């Protein structure tokens, strides 16, 4: 069963049209039509190995699509220079291995590369963007530390700050909540929402936590079976039947007794529910 509530449109900030992706020589995804609307948070979910990271790389222009094309504001991504693309799309991968002796502020300043001239020094706009990015992820205190002094969560936030310093209208984050404690996860996702609301950023997130995806995403795309399996609002997509097909789990929707929001509870099989 496939639910697709939208067609690829030219008003999309970022869109995939008939995109196929390869990881190595294996075709991971084929025929993906996906649009990301300006100012929305789109969650990308799917079981391990369904191609979330691969699709994000292709959307970011870091890897070419095996077939089909990615459109940035209606223009094919491969027709845009890599520098211009990096001013429009910031991408933070799941794991990045920064040199251990690089300072946090230096890592974040790498985000200014698409804006820098070959011989130009660090201008005040760059300095402001770096300071602002560090402030947004609450990492100002670590600016002068080297990367190897950071905890896993701090490292994650530093990498995200690097993406924020790019000041690109489109932000692609691959599992940004990895390594973060629950408070930081919520803080980061609230930050993402704020960026969309206040600064008109468009964000695509790969997430493993379906409940967080339901809470913070405007729309959700589910990858399963080598393609886009479902695409729509959390209420439309995160149904028991979709989650059963895509993840092989039983999901129960419950209402939070205080906030009234809908949350998801999971169990492995039927026998758990009827002990």
């Amino acid at each position: 069963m496939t639910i697709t509530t939208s067609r690829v449109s030219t008003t999309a900030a970022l869109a995939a049209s008939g995109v196929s992706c390869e990881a190595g020589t294996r075709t991971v995804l084929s025929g993906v039509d996906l649009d990301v609307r300006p100012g929305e948070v789109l969650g990308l979910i799917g079981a391990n190995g369904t191609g979330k990271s691969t699709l994000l790389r292709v959307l970011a222009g870091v890897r070419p699509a095996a077939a089909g094309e990615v459109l940035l504001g209606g223009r094919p991504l491969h027709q845009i220079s890599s520098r211009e693309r990096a001013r429009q799309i910031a991408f933070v991968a799941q794991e990045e291995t920064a040199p251990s002796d690089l300072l946090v502020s230096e890592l974040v300043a790498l985000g200014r590369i698409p804006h820098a001239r070959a011989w130009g020094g660090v201008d005040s706009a760059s300095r402001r963007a770096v300071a602002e990015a560090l402030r947004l992820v609450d990492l100002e205190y670590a600016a002068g530390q080297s990367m190897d002094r950071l905890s896993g969560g701090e490292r994650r936030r530093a990498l995200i700050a690097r993406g924020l310093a790019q000041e690109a209208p489109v932000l692609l984050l691959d599992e940004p909540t990895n390594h973060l404690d629950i408070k930081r996860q919520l803080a980061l996702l609230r930050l993402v929402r704020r960026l969309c609301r206040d600064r008109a950023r468009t964000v695509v997130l790969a997430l493993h936590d379906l409940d967080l995806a339901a809470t913070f995403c405007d729309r959700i795309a589910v990858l399963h079976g080598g393609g886009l399996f479902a695409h729509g609002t959390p209420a439309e997509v995160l149904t028991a039947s979709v989650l059963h097909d895509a993840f092989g789990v039983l999901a129960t929707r419950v209402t939070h007794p205080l906030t009234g929001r809908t949350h998801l509870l999971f169990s492995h099989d039927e026998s758990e529910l009827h002990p």
Partner: protein
Amino acid sequence: MAVLVPLAFLTVVLATGFGAEPLPVHVVLDALRGRFGGAPVDPAYDAIVWEIRLPRTLLGLVVGAGLAIAGAAVQTLVRNPLADPYLLGVSSGASVGATAVITFGVLSSAGLWALSLGALAGALLASVMVFGIAMLQGGLTPLRLVLTGTVLSAAFSSIASFLVFKSAEPQAAQSVLFWLLGSLSGATWDHLWLPTAVVALSITVLMAASGWLDALAVGPDTAAALGVPVQAVRTGLFVLTSVLVGVLVAVAGGIGFVGLVLPHLARLLVGPRHRASLPVAALAGGVFLVWVDVVTRIAVRPTEIPLSVVTGLIGAPVFLLLLGRRTYRFGGES
């Protein structure tokens, strides 16, 4: 930097005084002044300072600087702190060319330039082969470059050894060994302009691309996400280091350790950003090699010892000291 630039000038003047005939600093300065409109000095001193020692000292500065930046560039290209400028097979290719010249008199029509030409031809041939093989296998990725370079180096070394073995020249092995271990004794003003131009151009290009190199050091995906044309930069780095190292090997033979250790020393002093570390590596490498050359001239008089004998003796303990420092991790994880 503020320390290293004056240090480099001081090094040139002081090092020029050392040699078989030690000259006091004021004699060196007088001789230099004599060349630039000052009072003429004893022609013997003028010849020693201007014709023999100064080109040699300057060549040391240029070659040391070139090896250090080549090492830094290769370390970034293959993302491996143990990489040195010779990793990509350039030096062993050069050794085949040089050995062919020494043992079989190839290129003898080129006269004094034969050895340099042979080495350069061998170096470029080796680079083209490494490049071609890596591209055929799917592109210039770090691991592929390291493996291809290492394997071809071994093959070229075998060929060079075979040439020495087949040679009828009794002195061939000695000459080849001396050349392989590096020497600045061939320095003349004529030999200086090409390496100087290539090193200057390389530093300029690398500095202009320093942001891209920083991004590449973090990883190819990060670099691509930051708008760096990763394949083009890798190809550019490969071509630049191949030509640079090929020229350096052609004029001074294979000098070990400078290209491996000096980039780390620079990193330790000013951090890993290329914009800061490349100039420091270049100046420190130049100063270091000039003093190494002084040692080779005066340690075992009247003979000269090859440069690598000294760089190895100094470089190994320095590298071990760096290894022992807990705060320095060669840019990687502990």
